């Protein structure tokens, strides 16, 4: 029992379960899943489907955060990616052709990869603080997206493109399979090769890992490229869902929700150890909370209040747990004023 309690995923999993149980008690149809025309329907399926863009962005964010970084530009990258994809489809002669959509999606994701590489260049080569380096693209990216769409909301009517977000395969939504594929790819590369360990070592102590022969520049650069690519894919899903490229609304605030998902999943913003499973659970917590708030009849504009409460509860709980040992010794107040040197360095680095 004690071992379960101490597991790093204990609190995230418990929160998710509590949310699901509360929802089920409030409205039993929450866990109902119905089969209709070879497709599964239900609130839980909706959560799986709607969480796809956030899932992709949060996965990339996890890797970036593990290197002691942060990527604020993901929302803007989503906007650019959506704008690129829709503009290609719109301008082509055959918006309904699978080939057109395929090219559009590939180009959009490649553009996002380049944007991610740009962030990575600023952070790993020019050594600019991540929060500021990515702020540049966060500010400029939406402007670029607006230029691509010519300041309009481009809409398309393309069957194969809409399929990405609203289609079904084997009873389940396509978007969910994209999530699963991304999770599997990231987990395999990071956990089945040494890359994950190297990423963590760069995050825990960049200087020591450099001395130990870890090529930290390439690892950090790569992390931002992964984040950009995944954000690009998320932008395609978002655009496909609303069948339009909205440069202002696409991915608005998603960087904040993604960071929240990563933190909820137990990955520290100080970098180092990261948990992909934790992030996945964090995303589901956020999506379930969103669905709960919607069900309560709260206007979605007011939902940030709930997220604020969740953030405060989570961070305070984490900090108390961290200091549990100190509290037992006593003197909690005096020690509070003297955090360890290590913490401080991290704060400065941010």
């Amino acid at each position, binding site marked *: 029992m004690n071992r379960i309690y101490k597991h790093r995923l204990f609190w995230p999993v418990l929160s998710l379960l509590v949310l699901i149980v509360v929802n089920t008690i409030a409205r039993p149809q929450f866990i109902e899943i119905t089969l209709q025309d070879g497709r599964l329907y239900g609130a839980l399926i909706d959560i799986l489907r709607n969480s796809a863009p956030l899932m992709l962005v949060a996965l990339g964010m996890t890797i970036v955060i593990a290197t002691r970084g*942060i990527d604020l530009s993901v929302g803007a990258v989503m906007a650019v990616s959506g704008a690129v994809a829709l503009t290609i489809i719109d301008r082509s002669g055959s918006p309904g052709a699978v080939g057109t959509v395929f090219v559009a999606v590939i180009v959009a994701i490649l553009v996002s990869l380049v944007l991610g590489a740009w962030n990575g260049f*600023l952070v790993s080569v*020019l*050594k*600019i*603080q991540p*929060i*500021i*380096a990515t*702020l*540049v*693209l*966060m*500010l*400029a*990216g*939406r*402007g*670029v997206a*607006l*230029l691509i769409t010519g*300041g309009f909301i481009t809409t398309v009517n393309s069957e194969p493109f809409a399929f990405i977000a609203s289609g079904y395969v084997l009873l389940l939504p396509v978007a969910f399979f994209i999530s699963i594929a991304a999770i599997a790819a990231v987990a395999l590369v990071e956990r089945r090769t040494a890359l994950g360990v190297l990423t963590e070592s760069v995050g825990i102590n960049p200087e020591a890992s450099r001395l130990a022969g870890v090529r930290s520049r390439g690892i950090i650069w790569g992390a931002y490229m992964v984040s950009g690519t995944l954000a690009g894919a998320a932008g395609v899903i978002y655009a496909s869902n609303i069948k339009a490229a909205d*440069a202002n609304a696409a991915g*608005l605030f998603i960087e*904040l929700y993604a*960071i*929240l998902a990563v*933190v909820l999943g137990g990955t520290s*913003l*100080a970098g180092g150890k990261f948990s992909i499973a934790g992030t996945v659970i964090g995303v589901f917590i956020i999506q379930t909370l969103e669905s709960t708030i919607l069900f309560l009849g709260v*206007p979605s*504009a*007011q*939902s*940030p*209040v*709930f*997220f*604020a*409460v969740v*953030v*405060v509860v989570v*961070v*305070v709980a984490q*900090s*108390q747990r*961290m200091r549990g040992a100190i509290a037992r010794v006593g003197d909690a107040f005096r020690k*509070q*004023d*003297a*955090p360890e*040197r290590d*913490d*401080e360095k991290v*704060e*400065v680095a*941010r």
Partner: protein
Amino acid sequence: MTATMTRSEGRSEKRTGASVSVQGFFTRHSALMPTFAALAILLLLFAGAEAFLRGDFITPRNISALLLDNAYLLILAVGMTFVIVTGGIDLSVGSVMAFTGILGAKLLAEGMPVAIAIPVILAGGAVIGLIIGVLVQYFNVQPFIASLAGLFLARGLAFVVSLSSIKVEEPAILWLQSTRFSVGGWYITPTGIIALLAVAVAAFVMHLTRMGRTVYAIGGSESSARLMGLKVARTKVMVYVISGFCAGLAGLVLTAYSGAGYPRNGIGTELDAIAAVVIGGTLLTGGRGYVIGSMIGVFVYGTIKTIITFMGAEQSWMQIIVGALLLLFIVVQRAIVARSEGRG
């Protein structure tokens, strides 16, 4: 070893000529460099716009409007400077501004007297700042995350107050905006005076009080500041309270400016404020920066915006140019920091 060599060489060269003494000035005041750079950019922008628009740009009306249109951003940037100099960041200011703005409009619409409503909204901003400060200082939450919680809280509360915009009829609030004290073609509104007062008070606090010196000391090295016996905990909470208070004040000014409270105001304004502070020469690592620099940063931002409007270019260029300018300044700062570190 090489660092000491360069330094002693620089010293011996200093006696040789006037150009070297200018160099010496910048070496001694390397922290001022980015602010001078911002000032140079501002003057360049003015000169460029004047030349490009054939003398239509530098008119008393335009320059006065620059202060009027950016008064709220200036106040936000002042509060943000305090936080950034301690090495923190406050993402909540745009949302707090929206919240206090809509709260003020609502209170006034329900008949609350101005003398009570204004202190209430200023206190509202300060309380959100206090929450962020306590989270940062006493729960060891990173400023980024703590102020993110503040952002969500304030944005949500703004929509709790009202889902749509509320018009302000109160003459005292409208007076802040409509009154123009003019000399020749120049004019200034009470909102502009409030913004300039905020800059003056902040500059006074930063440079001439114990608290201001503590703010710089924390940004330089928090543990050293603590070992020196400075009141680190109190000051760190205080900078967030100041930033929240400024956001409340900005909410008041924005409500007067637009004549209404609107819960969607100020989405992304925190980034504009941060960009203005950085362009003004404040280092995001903390310890260096000037309130006056942030004022210059806001004017650079405002001037770009005006030029784009004048040229009739698409507004999307605004975001791209500000992003590019931000990048330029960061790279310049990065070079300066690298140089000063090299000198030991």
